[in-house]
């Protein structure tokens, strides 16, 4: 009788011990796994200024596609480090840069110089040259990138892919 209860206790303890240890091992092993999975949530990507051309490369009144490297360009990522924006020279020292992502579902909008409109190939979204919506499903104007001029160099500040949220 007495021996049985000791045995019972001993067994109970060993079960708890094994489950506890297994749980600990799983938790510790899980740390790097979850880190790999969720890293994009905690990484902060700084926004940086990128040269997109010399002041003289741009004619007043025209809109041009400029390409530059995104903010967190890994050396091994090939062309996928590229990003593009539509840049217009409004006046001598005034530029406007538009994101190439349609605010509807992110498709690449094209500048149609003749029509002076941005057009989206996916669901027929159209924007005026100031970026406001002219037609189609886009819920809001094209997103703009900050632009500045430094020593004759035009610079665009990198930005995340603009994500439209539910309130738009």
């Amino acid at each position, binding site marked *: 009788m007495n021996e049985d209860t000791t045995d019972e206790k001993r067994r109970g303890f060993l079960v708890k011990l094994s489950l506890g240890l297994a749980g600990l091992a799983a938790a510790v092993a899980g740390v790097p796994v979850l880190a790999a999975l969720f890293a*994009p949530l905690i990484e902060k990507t700084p926004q940086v200024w990128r040269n997109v051309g010399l002041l003289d490369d741009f004619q007043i009144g025209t809109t041009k596609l400029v390409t530059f490297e995104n903010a967190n360009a*890994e050396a091994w990522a090939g*062309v996928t480090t590229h990003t593009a924006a539509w840049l217009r020279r409004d006046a001598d020292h005034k530029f406007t840069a538009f994101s190439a992502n349609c605010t509807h*579902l992110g*498709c*690449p909008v094209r500048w149609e110089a003749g029509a002076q*409109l941005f057009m989206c*190939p996916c669901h027929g979204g159209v924007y005026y040259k100031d970026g406001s919506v002219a*037609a189609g499903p886009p819920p809001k104007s094209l997103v703009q990138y900050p632009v500045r001029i430094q020593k004759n160099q035009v610079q665009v500040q990198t930005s995340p*892919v603009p994500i439209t949220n539910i309130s738009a």
Partner: protein
Amino acid sequence: MKTLKKIWHWIDDRSGFTEIFGPLLGHLVPPGAKWSYVFGSATLFCLVLQVITGVALSLLYQPSSAEAYQSLQFITHQAAFGNILRGMHYFGASFMIIMVTVHMIRVYLTAAYKFPREMAWISGVLLFFLTIAMGFTGQLLRWDSNGVWSSVVAAEQLGRLPFIGKWAARLLLGGDTIGGHSLSRFFSYHVFIIPAIIFLFVGYHLMLVIRNGISEPPEAGRLVDPKTYRQWYQDMLKSKGVPFWPYAAWRDVLFGAGTIIAIIGFAYFVGPPELTTPPDPAHLNTTPAPDWYMLSIFSLFALMPARIESYMIIIGPTLTIIILLALPFVSNKGERHPIRRPWAVFGSACVVIFVFALFLLGEKSPWSPRFKSKPLTAVNIHSTNPEVMAGGALFYKKGCLYCHRINDQGGYRGPNLTQVGLRLSYGDLTIRIVNGGGNMPAYGGILSKKELTDILAFLQSRK
């Protein structure tokens, strides 16, 4: 011969094949389970083909944002049988989606989800969505400009989730822009994470088929009563059941093999979809379009009123999942025969027609500007009046032709203007062009006075 038999007996005895799988293969199934029952197993055949061709592709594919495109070019144009391999994987996916859909409709129409097979339905619904997820992530792995932009579109849709949208989009892309981590993530979803979940649920789904038995073909007036059904089913099997292997299975094998042969045929004669341009996010001259099984949703996005869209992107799928999962709880007994469940038949038909109509529309996508439209020819302008000719040229230059048709040229978004001179007066035309409205941009700020009169002259001459 004798030695071979001996060897086999030894292997079988020590490994336990016959002992373990014999009863499973020979289990009794209801008689009369005929051709309508083959779609589930055909889905499984397709899955096996996807696994095998997927593994083969993984031997040739470079899952890196920088190199995936080149490796796919290599697979398609250089690797031995690479083109057929890609084609088989592509058409295998298409067939799998067709088979799983038909299987699901069959189960719904014959109410096979009722007692005691509720869990089979639930795991099946999950498998259906996982299959779609595989199709979608697979399309992204092509990592041409279509794939890159589809991943942006996917991220945008996740972005509409309340509260966590931005985070979800970031997780999908592996950062806040398309970049080095994006493809690695999709590769991991498509090759490890989703398949692992699929295997789990396929195993469970099949286990349930063995445990609860294949549903007997419905008979009008024979009701399912949870209290007596199991006993009745067992008795019925005992008196009338036939061993699954080979008396019921031959149809599955025949149909499954036919499916595989059809897939190989498509792969050989049609081939996989051509890659579009390289995955350069700075390359904007692309027209991203999803694979056919996503086309209906693509159309829906174009047609939905913009105001409700954000909500529909979230509520639509959530509601669909809830309804599908709730089905066996809402009705798990009673009539099974479709003849006695006209609303089920009607509802399914409506869904099928709706999805198919959206698909056909998506093929044509009349809402998209036709960027490929060519300038109007002299034949189409058919006038020597310099104003009309200038207007005709402007009609193309200003993008009007992308959305409107003149004779057989142009887009479908706006009304056909071939004979607009008969319908609208000079004043009406002016107001519409200057003010826009509906899906027409206001051209007032875009056209000069002269340009406007030229275009008007051109349109007035369209009779």
